[in-house]
């Protein structure tokens, strides 16, 4: 028996290819079917009768959907921007100075990613309630900003870690004060990391349901919340169309993020 066929070699396990096929089918088939059905002419979602863009037209003509989409984009823009600014400041500070408790702080910054979202969502709701704040767009933006920070932070931090610390000293040596050194050297070099952090935060916010559901109020209905309301009364082709559009936006953003990530290698 050749060494390559040793029993422990996972690549040789029988049925591995089949398991992989099942996995991919399980993940992507429903999405694929959803996209196909969004072009279905028939009102009854599961019966294919012909190709049509009718549901897309209807979605774009529906004021509620447009308002929800507008809210989603507004919240994602504000939250991703604020989170990225805060994350950039945090990452730069963490990389340039040493202070007591730094390791712990670094871990705490990334921890929220692993905490079940329901926990901070309920806690935030209680926090706003105890302050007597009216729930709405504002509270959702604040909550989104907070949970987006770790997602924005990680790519920026990774980028900073790959940066030569001597560059800052070189800038100072060439008469740049700390402000000039930051804007002329650190920030441009961080840009790919900042942009991919922003895109990531944007997608996370766009996609969020749990937090929005808890801390939202009148006038803060986002697309996921709206879709949830629709499917409670049954899946309509319209829902398929909106979902397909959201998928398109996400894919576009992820591609952009990957592209930006790749351009990092130029430096």
């Amino acid at each position: 028996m050749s060494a390559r066929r040793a029993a422990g070699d996972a690549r040789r396990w029988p049925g591995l290819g089949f398991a992989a096929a099942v996995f991919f089918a399980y993940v992507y088939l429903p999405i694929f079917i959803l996209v196909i059905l969004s072009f279905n002419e028939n009102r009854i979602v599961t019966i294919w009768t012909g190709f049509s863009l009718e549901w897309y037209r209807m979605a774009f003509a529906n004021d509620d959907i447009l308002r929800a989409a507008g809210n989603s984009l507004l919240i994602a823009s504000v939250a991703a921007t604020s989170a990225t600014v805060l994350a950039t400041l945090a990452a730069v500070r963490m990389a340039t100075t040493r202070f007591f408790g730094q390791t712990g702080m670094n871990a705490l910054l990334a921890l929220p990613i692993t905490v079940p979202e329901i926990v901070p969502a309920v806690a935030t709701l209680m926090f706003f309630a105890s302050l007597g704040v009216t729930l709405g767009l504002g509270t959702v933006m604040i909550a989104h900003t907070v949970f987006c920070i770790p997602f924005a932070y990680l790519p920026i931090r990774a980028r900073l870690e790959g940066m030569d610390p001597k560059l800052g000293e070189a800038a100072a040596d060439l008469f740049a004060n700390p402000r000039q050194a930051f804007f002329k050297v650190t920030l441009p070099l961080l840009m790919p990391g900042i942009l991919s952090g922003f895109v990531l935060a944007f997608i996370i916010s766009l996609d969020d349901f749990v937090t929005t559901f808890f801390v939202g109020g009148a006038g803060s209905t986002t697309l996921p919340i709206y879709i949830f309301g629709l499917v409670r009364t049954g899946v309509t082709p319209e829902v398929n169309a909106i979902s397909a559009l959201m998928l398109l936006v996400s894919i576009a953003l992820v591609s952009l993020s990957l592209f930006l990530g790749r351009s990092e290698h130029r430096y």
Partner: protein
Amino acid sequence: MPLRKPEAGSSSANAIELRGVGKTFGSGAAAFVALRDVSTTIEQNVFFTLLGPSGCGKTTLLRLIAGFEAATTGEILLHGKEIADLPPYRRPVNTVFQSYALFPHMTVAQNVAFGLQMLKQPKDEIARTVDEMLKLVQMEALKNRRTSELSGGQQQRVALARALAPKPRVLLLDEPLSALDLKLRKEMQVELKRLQTETGITFVFVTHDQEEALTMSDKVAVMNEGQILQIGTPREIYNHPANRFVADFIGDINFIKAEIVEVGKTRCTARFDGNQKLSFTPDAEVSKGQKVTLAVRPERIAVANGKNALSATLDNVVYHGTDTLYHFSLGDGTRMLARRQNSDGTIPEWQTGDPFGWAVSGNAVAIVADGPEQTA
């Protein structure tokens, strides 16, 4: 001539003065003394080299002068003024970093222009200086390249141009040639020396390569374990090393334990290896009966016959192209090395254990103190 010379008499004659400078990293049990009580004066317009093994504190000293680190004790004067309160971006010195630290998001020209822009010089003047600097380091053709597209040697030149562009009166260079291959390094050594002479800028150059230090410098400071052991011209350092460490670090050298048995007007005689006698001109005060360590460079030992020759036993002969190395031993086991140029092309027949006759001229012997290397 591309750069202005600093006007004579425009300030005190010393570019840099270090007074009892010390640097300790960390505190308590983890404290590490990187520099202790370093004092020296670096005059204007000289090529000053800090030479020492890796980890001896050379980079730390440069970083103190540039302002990236604060001295724990002592003071640093730049052109007669204390600079402790000045942040790095206010100090009129520029640095060529060991890793070059070029800005990767800028072109070659933008890198060179950076310091001038920070000094708020007019645009046309900046453009002129950048061209001038790139010409100086022969990089005009690659002006618009990104620095990541350059070879090591080219990056080195850009780093040099960038540091020279603001026309500092003191340039700090941290092992700028260590990443280059031998041939390029030799070229750049000549180039750097030429630049220093032409511009009249004071160069404080760091290296661990003794040959580089000897060929380029006006003055060399030999460092070890955070201290300066000797400062002098390359000739002084090479021919009259102050202690064993310096003697050993700079090139090959033979140490002979001896006792002074006779002191004359200009010459003295030392007895070594049982009863062999060597007469020489001492470079330090000696007295009869004194125990000394003598240092002799291999190239100052001649292969000799005849009755005045000193005796030894041959261990090995190694042919090196331009010269031949004779490894031999004294009767007391002291290992010695002699180097002889292969000017006549003949290589002698030899066998291990053959008697070996040798001689040393009277001015080739230095008396060295037993330095830190032995006490440590």
